[in-house]
């Protein structure tokens, strides 16, 4: 048994570990002797909550399935094993004039994890989720079946696995659609805003002309609602290079304890630094998309009790009211959050049955685990999300009550359950789905 914890480091739990040496290996038997408990895929453990944990059960780790099997430049596709890290894949693709259309705020995740959480990026309004660009994959089931899944074959499994949090089987390889790029540069602009109204104006005006939009909000200092709006496009002139020093992310979070003071300082300094860059500038894609990847294991700064990320989506135009309400509750609670990441989701539909995004606003905030105080705040936030008809992102969740989950994901749950592998289970599925 090996102790594993997820990115939020809220708890450690013993797991049996099985890391297949290659993608042709069968899954271990669920009822083996001694029984290994049920199975759950493990990618790179970048889920914040309990989606990637299966306490006292078996984790199927994709660490050795890291081959890039084919890049087809004519078709603009790549075939990869499920354990390939997006970082390695992107680094190579960019030299061939391609990129993944959708990557999350860290590239230290696997292709399998990206499919299972149906991750989203800053360009949701243009490109939807990761799952929108998955052409096919191979799914290993605990009964030994090997299912080739695509929109046309085993389509139920295809749709259930995208966003299915590893509960439908183990993905061994996938074929993904790529997008063309001229280089690795993003032409970016950072604009400060003083209120959520200003955010809404910026978001509305940027949606058409900018592929990537996201805002960092400061929930502690000031009157609330201020922040930095970042937008950018891929630089499409391949001749453009910047010489010398990379215009990187100007500031990485202080590696210190997260307390009221450091938070306030961080937010103030961050705000000040970035508010001075309203003119367009060139930045390498990795610094623009994954600023936190520059600090290895930044999650440890929260100390032994770990931390939570609360990420909700609140639908429609009224969603902004909920965001306002959330900010108020946070500011009143004194449970400050480093950064709130606020963005708009567009209406592009993912094939995933349990996929998280819906048109509206998504807000993600980190909180140190301060026990009942934090739990109390979350209960208040839950009420806002529920009333707004929103839901929480399973890849981030470690604590939502089952009734909020059921209200949020509603009728999709029944359809999803049909494709769940009875030999698979996670701490999250036992907590929220009863299996």
């Amino acid at each position, binding site marked *: 048994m090996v102790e594993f914890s997820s990115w939020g480091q809220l708890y450690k739990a013993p797991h049996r570990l099985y*890391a297949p040496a*290659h993608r*042709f290996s069968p899954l271990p038997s669920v009822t083996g002797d001694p029984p290994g408990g049920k199975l759950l895929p493990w990618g790179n453990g970048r889920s914040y909550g309990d989606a990637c944990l299966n306490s006292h059960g078996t984790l199927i780790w994709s*660490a*050795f399935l890291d*081959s890039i*099997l084919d890049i087809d430049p004519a078709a603009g596709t790549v075939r990869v094993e499920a354990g390939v890290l997006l970082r390695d894949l992107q680094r*190579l693709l960019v030299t061939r004039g391609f990129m993944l259309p959708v990557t999350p705020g860290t590239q230290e995740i696997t292709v399998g994890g990206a499919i299972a959480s149906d991750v989203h990026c800053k360009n949701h309004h243009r490109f939807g989720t990761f799952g929108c660009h998955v052409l096919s994959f191979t799914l290993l089931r605990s009964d030994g079946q090997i299912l080739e899944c695509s929109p046309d074959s085993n389509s139920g499994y295809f749709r259930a696995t995208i966003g299915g949090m590893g509960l439908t089987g183990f993905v061994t390889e996938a074929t993904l659609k790529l997008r063309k790029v001229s280089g690795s540069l993003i032409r970016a602009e950072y604009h400060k805003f003083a209120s959520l109204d200003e955010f809404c104006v910026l978001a509305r005006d940027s949606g058409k002309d900018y592929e990537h939009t996201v805002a960092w909000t400061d929930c502690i200092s000031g009157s609330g609602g201020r922040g930095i709006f970042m937008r950018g496009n891929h630089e499409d002139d391949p001749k453009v290079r910047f010489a010398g020093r990379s215009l990187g992310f100007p500031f990485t979070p202080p590696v210190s304890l997260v307390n009221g003071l450091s938070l306030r300082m961080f937010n103030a300094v961050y705000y000040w630094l970035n508010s001075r860059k309203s003119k367009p500038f060139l930045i390498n894609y990795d610094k623009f998309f994954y600023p936190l990847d520059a600090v290895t294991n930044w999650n440890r700064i929260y100390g032994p009790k770990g931390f939570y990320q609360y990420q909700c989506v609140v639908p429609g135009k009224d969603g902004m009211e909920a965001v306002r309400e959330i900010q108020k509750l946070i500011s009143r609670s004194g449970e400050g959050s480093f950064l709130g990441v606020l963005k708009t989701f567009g209406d592009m539909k993912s094939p995933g049955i349990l996929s998280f995004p819906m048109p509206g606003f998504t807000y993600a905030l980190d909180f140190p685990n301060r026990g009942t105080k934090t739990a109390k705040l979350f209960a208040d936030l839950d009420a806002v999300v529920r009333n707004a008809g929103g839901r929480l992102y399973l890849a981030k969740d470690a604590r939502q009550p089952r009734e909020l989950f059921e209200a949020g994901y509603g009728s999709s749950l029944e359809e999803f359950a049909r494709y769940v592998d009875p030999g698979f289970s996670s701490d999250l599925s036992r907590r929220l789905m009863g299996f």
Partner: protein
Amino acid sequence: MKYRKIVIVGATSFIAHNCARLWAEQGAESFTLVGRDVERTTSVGQDLRSRSSAEGFKVSCRQVGDFCSPGEVEDAVREICGDGIPDLVLIAQGSSAEANSELTASSGKLSASLALNGISPLLFAQAFANRMQDGDGQIVIVGSVAGDRGRASNYVYGAGKSMVDTFVQGMRHYMALNGRNLEVSLIKPGPTFSPMTAELVGSMKLADVRSVAEAIVAGVRRRKKVIYVPFKWRIIMLIIRLMPDFIFNRLKI
């Protein structure tokens, strides 16, 4: 320097595969991959093709059913060299999957382990050396720190590896005496994350395979004689080798 033809024996090894990736990224022009399973070996080849930066990149696979059979090894090496003499051969097969106690409880297993970890790499190494000794290529064998001193926990595996060590010393001596430029080197990895050691995750610190591969590739480029990876194992093993029995025999290592 760009390699024109690299042969990897035991190409599905995670360590060897990661070295090959680096060579492919650096522009090596062709690979011949030797493995016992066609499907898995082909998969490694596909990965190298995807990552290669060389124009007209070529990769071919050669299956060898029994790595310990002198006949099969000789045939494979003859065929591979018939297509052109390689400038670099990496020999990586080996296994410490079975516990020492299992190996000592069965003569069959004992013999199989010695054959795989000791005899098989040497059959390949000598067969390649016989064809490469007029040139200035390189033969690199993956040994192990386990071969530096016999220990209760893994001396069967260690004995296979130390056999390789002695053989490499002798080959180097021979090349020197005969004015040959063929370079024969030995890699001695410490515990490294790979399928062979995956069971140790959580109970032992394992080196990251990428950095191990980088150190190997750098050492091979400099034509080093013995490459300990990570480097600290050179010091640790020096201490262990020099340790007097009255201390050593009390250590459970």
